[in-house]
């Protein structure tokens, strides 16, 4: 194969944020910038530039140095900085390693927060942009599609993205474990601080029925309550409203506990022992830890939530190992396809397929004929089927051979032929473009 896959990049693992900012490639067009040229060392390119990573994926000639120089030159040139500085921070993967890296990035195994879901969307955007700018070709197109599908596979077959890794999301997840759907539940914020507001926003996104806000000063409570279209009240009134509240987020600056177990017995009786979930994000704590001893009351303070988050992160690391196994399988599949882009294996595959079809059809027809058929008829039929298939495939093969002689690069046509004759035996879903139409 005369082409090689190269991947150059900076990420949170190799470069400080200043470097990443300096060498961001937002708005970089590989064709306008002269990275991809007709004759040049690079013939396909895709740029991914996010706040945690800048990656340049390209397909070029096998000579590493030439490709590397061209990439560094245009990259540093676009950013108005020294190529030497850039060279010190980048990593350079080729072929199998490059494919593996891209697949890991897509599956969010290389992310700062392992398994976070944004990166796949960012990669999809980057790909869409590259397609619009006509800087991709057969290899990058297929590589990206496969990276999306392998990311989807890791997500559905491992739990790498399943548990909450931020405090407010961990709280929401716990609330759902207790109450199920939250759309019939009410929350109460005690203390109108910034943290409480953030947590409330997360809860509202889950479709809470109502949010009540209690604060030392009624004014500030009103202010916040208006924003959530909720009810405002003074701190002194909370015990009148607690029987209606299912989720209570507390963040006052009070130096002593404002809710104790003995206060809640009456509240629980009034709400017929429906469960209550207390989230105490104040330091020092607002809610006496004793309340967790009561049946149907669950109390988490900020340390507990932090611990949940850390445990979830550790769990994701374990799952990431499984995901790497899946990535490895997908990389192997991609490599197999890549190797088949040579002319001769494709011709062999094409002829094999034809022969298989011919043999199958002859067998089927023979079954419909009397069993005492003489050998001559049998041979004639076999000959007929084989030569029919051979004649049918003759022109496509001649076409492929001619193209590879004339243009030097025949991947596009070979890929097309493989697709048209379905030589890779791929399972094609009934509506492969269903998700595109929605957009």
């Amino acid at each position, binding site marked *: 194969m005369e082409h090689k896959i190269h991947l150059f990049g900076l990420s949170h693992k190799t470069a400080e944020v200043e470097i990443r900012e300096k060498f961001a490639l937002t708005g970089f067009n590989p064709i306008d910038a002269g990275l991809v040229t007709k004759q040049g060392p690079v013939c396909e390119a895709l740029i991914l530039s996010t706040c945690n990573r800048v990656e340049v994926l390209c397909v070029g000639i096998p000579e590493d140095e030439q490709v590397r120089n061209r990439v560094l030159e245009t990259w540093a040139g676009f950013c108005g900085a020294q190529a030497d500085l850039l060279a010190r921070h980048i990593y350079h993967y080729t072929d199998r390693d490059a494919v593996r890296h891209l697949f890991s990035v897509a599956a969010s195994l290389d992310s700062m927060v392992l398994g976070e879901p944004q990166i796949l969307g960012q990669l999809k955007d980057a790909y869409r942009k590259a397609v619009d700018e006509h800087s991709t070709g057969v290899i990058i197109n297929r590589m990206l599609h496969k990276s999306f599908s392998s990311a989807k596979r890791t997500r559905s077959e491992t*739990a790498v993205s*399943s*548990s909450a890794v931020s405090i407010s999301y961990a709280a929401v997840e*716990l609330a*759902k*474990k*207790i*109450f*199920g759907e939250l759309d019939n539940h009410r929350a109460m914020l005690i203390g109108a601080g910034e943290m409480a507001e953030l947590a409330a926003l997360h809860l509202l996104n889950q479709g809470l029925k109502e949010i009540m806000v209690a604060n030392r000063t009624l004014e500030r409570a009103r202010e916040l309550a208006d924003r959530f279209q909720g009810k405002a009240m003074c701190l002194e009134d909370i015990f009148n409203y607690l029987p209606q509240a299912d989720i209570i987020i507390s963040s006052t600056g009070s130096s002593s506990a404002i809710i104790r177990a003995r206060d809640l017995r009456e509240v629980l009786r009034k709400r*017929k*022992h*429906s*469960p209550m979930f207390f989230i105490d994000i104040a330091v020092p704590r607002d809610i006496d830890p004793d309340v*967790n001893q009561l*049946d*149907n009351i*669950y109390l*988490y303070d900020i340390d*507990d939530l932090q*611990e*949940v988050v850390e*445990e979830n992160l550790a*769990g994701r690391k374990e799952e990431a190992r499984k995901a790497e196994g899946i990535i490895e399988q997908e990389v192997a599949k991609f490599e197999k396809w890549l190797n088949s882009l040579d002319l001769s294996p494709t011709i062999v595959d094409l002829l094999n397929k034809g022969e298989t079809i011919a043999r199958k059809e002859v067998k089927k027809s023979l079954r419909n004929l009397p069993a005492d058929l003489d050998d001559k008829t049998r041979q004639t039929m076999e000959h007929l089927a084989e030569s029919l298939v051979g004649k049918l495939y003759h022109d496509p093969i001649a076409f492929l051979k001619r193209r590879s002689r004339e243009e030097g690069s025949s991947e596009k046509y070979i890929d097309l032929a493989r697709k048209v004759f379905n030589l890779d035996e791929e399972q094609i879903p009934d509506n492969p473009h269903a998700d595109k139409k929605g957009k």
Partner: protein
Amino acid sequence: MLSFRILDLVIALLYLSGAVSFLLGIIYSRNKIQNISACLTIAGFGLHTVDLALKYSLGLGEVLTQSQFYISLLAWTFLLIFILLWWRLKLKFLSLIAAPLALVIFTCSLAISPATLPIPGLLQGLWFGLHIGSLFVSIALLAMAFGAGLAYLHLDNKIKTKSRMGNVTRDLPSLNTFDRVNHWAVMVGFPLFTLGTLSGFIWAAFTWKTIFSWDPKEVFTIAIWFFFAWLFHKRATGGWKGRKPAKLAILIFILSLISFVGINFFTETHHSLRPDGT
């Protein structure tokens, strides 16, 4: 009769594969396997229905005096209730308790040698049917409350003690859902249990001319009824949710099982299902 043997075996195999595959589906948290398992269990249930209907229509009356038939019917009722709950509350999870229980009970019905029950006198159709039907349904509901109760206690404990949730726990439905199963099982189960017990006494009055004969089964059932009544009262008046009703439902189900297995098979009672028919 051979064809019935084969049918029974197929049903047992379907229940077995349903139970095992559901367990696997839960452990590896694959929805597809869980759905396949549900299909297997429902297929088993369908065949089971046919099996019971055939046995009933072929040997009407006679089959009602065979212990096998009742045990098989109990297994069938368990699945009926599970499928209803699954359909109404979307609680696939209870398959974990329903499929294995149905399997065990159904296999029991195959294992014991067909015995003729000493059902005396006229079968007073209505009362007897009411007695069996409502008690079986309420026991099946208790079984679901038992499964939901165990899951509730497990999940509640995890959340209370803030300990790490494994993949299986993470995929469990919410505490609220399990509590709702308990609620429905108690609200529907207790009236049925009462009805079943009462109709049993009325039937006894017709058949033996005495309402209460200090039969061990009768004494035990009344004890269970008191527990159940207490649970029903506490739930209905709004006092109880969560752990306490879950625990009590578990206790009542275990007592019912003891009553069913221990008393029906091992003591002198006119509820005897013992193979030798004494």
